[in-house]
């Protein structure tokens, strides 16, 4: 059998050097993976190498773009006319709804101004297009044609006409990568519109649905309930549709209800998406109030002990204010908000 045996391709002999090299390379790969998993510096490397990566994304996106162009070019006239008609009806309907909403929105705005809240219904968005690139099977990510040069930041919310699609996770100079809400590693805080129940919707293994694994057993949840973003967590602004519950069942342990939901957005069909510009209110404590009140040099010296014990009697409303002490009291309350 061994016709031309040479040293380079031995038929059965194991090569020690080859094994050693394999171990070295495998170790190197493992080190890379661990470093990347822990530190996440792949983003920096990619940002640096985006000069190479981005043109390749664009080129690799050409076939799907060409496919779409061909679909339009070879689609028969009737279908296009039908589609046009449908879009026109949709637009008409949407406009009619908008007109009805306008007065309500204005009223809402006025009431909110009265209540002095900061929410506004206006959207500050940016249009983006998908680039047809496959980032690995069972990875629910999409590539968009806007990037750091268009002032895109990681964490911005991606929506389409029907609902939330996901959020930006990786930004390169002229492209960005968004994680879809169906990714198994993604979670989005939602409320059930009908009952106001707050819960969290996770992506699912199969990737075409959302799972809500921890709903209390006593909660009122039915198939057909709409999910909207709750705005908790400070990433997704409240009030955007997320999905619709398909079925509800008990978890095997019986301690929770688990529901499956269908995403509202056209995750695999949308070509044009919107990037929300204003993020929701950040979670966590409010920023420190700016210094108000008299300048700090009027404040009493904190190291001067005799002034502070007398303060309570001065600030009590019934006490008759002495001119000299009242000024020190006012300045001290002013500097400690």
């Amino acid at each position, binding site marked *: 059998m061994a016709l031309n045996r040479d040293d380079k*391709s031995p038929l059965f002999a194991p090569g020690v050097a080859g094994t050693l090299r394999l171990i070295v390379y495998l170790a190197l790969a493992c080190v890379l993976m661990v470093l990347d998993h822990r530190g996440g510096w792949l983003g920096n490397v990619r940002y640096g190498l985006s000069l190479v990566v981005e043109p390749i994304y664009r080129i690799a996106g050409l076939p799907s773009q060409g496919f779409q162009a061909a679909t339009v070019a070879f689609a028969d006239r009737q279908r296009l006319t039908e589609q046009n008609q449908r879009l026109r009806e949709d637009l008409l309907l949407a406009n009619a709804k908008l007109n009805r909403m306008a007065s309500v929105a204005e009223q809402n705005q006025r009431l909110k101004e009265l209540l002095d809240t900061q929410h506004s219904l206006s959207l500050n968005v940016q249009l983006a297009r998908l680039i047809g690139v496959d980032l690995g099977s069972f990875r629910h990510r999409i590539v968009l044609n806007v990037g750091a040069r268009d002032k895109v930041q990681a964490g911005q919310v991606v929506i389409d006409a029907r609902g939330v699609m996901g959020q930006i996770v990786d930004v390169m100079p002229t492209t960005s990568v968004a994680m879809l809400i169906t990714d198994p590693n993604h979670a989005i805080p939602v409320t059930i519109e009908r009952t106001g129940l707050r819960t969290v919707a996770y992506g699912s293994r199969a990737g075409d649905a959302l799972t809500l694994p921890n709903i209390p057993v006593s909660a009122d949840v039915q198939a057909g309930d709409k999910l909207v973003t709750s705005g908790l967590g400070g990433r997704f602004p409240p009030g955007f549709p997320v999905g619709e519950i398909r079925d509800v069942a008990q978890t095997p342990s019986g301690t929770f209800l688990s529901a499956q939901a269908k995403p509202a957005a056209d995750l695999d069909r949308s070509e044009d998406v919107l990037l929300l510009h204003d993020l929701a209110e950040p979670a966590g404590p409010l920023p420190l109030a700016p210094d108000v009140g008299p300048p700090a040099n009027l404040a009493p010296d904190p190291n001067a002990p005799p002034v502070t014990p007398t303060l309570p009697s001065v600030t009590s409303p019934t006490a008759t204010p002495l001119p000299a002490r009242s000024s020190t009291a006012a300045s001290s309350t002013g500097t400690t908000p």
Partner: protein
Amino acid sequence: MNKVRVRQLWFAATLLMSLFLMLIPLPGPLTPFKPYWPALILLYWCLQSGDRVTLGLAFCLGVAADLFDGILLGEQALRLTAMVFIALRFRSRLRFFPMWQQSLAVLAFLLNDRILLLLIRVFGGDPLPPVEYWISPLVGAALWPFVFLILDDLRARLRIHEA
């Protein structure tokens, strides 16, 4: 001299092509059927000219693929290195296999590759993938005879052309 250069260009072009094929999406329902192109092309070169494919090359190709993929740097590098190592070790035997046996061997390689990927992802904290995850190696093995014959034919043609 010219011949060598053309061959090297052809070699590099096929590898680059495999990366492109990896990035180009298939229409929605066909997505799980997409074979792992870099592995197929690398296997072809392993069997065809084993002295040109080294572990280092497999590692570099894997890192490049990881950069395009943007998921986890080193993942595909590890998978491709392991696969090329096994393929190079059994190269002399695989070359004399009839085509259907070669296809079976490729299926084994690709399945092994998927198991490695599964291990990596589970260690990384991902949930188990759905059943469609295992379709891709079958498609790859079914495509193998065509990949092999087409690439071989093209190679022969190039050689004739330049001679």
